[in-house]
């Protein structure tokens, strides 16, 4: 079964056009990011400050983002990120 799956994936190599599309997207994004960096030179600190302004550490207690902590959706949960997502 595994080899069949691999074979199917191998058959589905992306077209060259999709690679070119992504390269163009990435180039446009880099241009945008360069301009943003001049206005926001410390994006990591900005992210930290923003998250701290919208969430308190208490929101992290327990591993469930939704519902009661007993009914987990661990595969989407950051505190259990190594197991899914």
């Amino acid at each position, binding site marked *: *079964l595994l080899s069949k*799956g691999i074979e199917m994936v191998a058959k589905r190599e992306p077209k060259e056009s999709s690679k070119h599309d992504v390269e163009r997207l990435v180039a446009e994004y880099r241009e945008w*990011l360069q301009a943003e960096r001049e206005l926001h030179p410390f994006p990591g600190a900005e992210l930290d400050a923003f998250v701290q302004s919208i969430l308190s550490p208490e929101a992290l207690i327990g591993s469930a983002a*939704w519902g009661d902590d007993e009914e987990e959706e661990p595969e989407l949960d*950051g505190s259990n*990120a190594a197991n*899914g997502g």
Partner: protein
Amino acid sequence: MAGNVFDLNDPAVALPDYIVVDTNIIVERVLSSLNVRLPVQNPRQSRQAAGFFQRLLLENSVGIVTPTAYGELIHVILGRLLKEYGLQQNPKLGAREVHKRFPGFIKTLEPTLRSLRLILARNGLKFVSMDRVELVDAIAPFDEYLITLCCDFGLNVGDARVLIEAQRLGIGSIATMDGDMQRASANFDIYTWL
């Protein structure tokens, strides 16, 4: 294409020009912002995620976020915001209950989510829209192919969808904290922490 597994603990491993980033790394990075004020639950993953984002910027690599990963990210962050609101209620409410009882509150979260998206973009992530990952060939339709990836590679639906989207975009490199994703290394370069 035959892929490889690369260990991000190895400083000699360089990131490619662009790489699909799995949801777990982004969520871990966002939540690691709170670790300064909390006994850290996952110190290792937290450091790894923060280090990965630093590398994106330092190495001028672009982290591609596919529509499925983006949806998962919003789902988790929205859940945390609802949980936060529920903690402020008396008696305290869970996120699911807040979601059912306070639809007006959810509406107020729109600017917060938009701002978070923008700040993550400044941190090296390019969010790719759904129309970019539409079917590029017709060998197997999405519905059949999803089953193939889930069953043959032993992946959950989210992981399988991210792989399909990466492939449609023509990207062969995935960064993840998920050990299951290594099963796809026959066809993708998997960047992870071994």
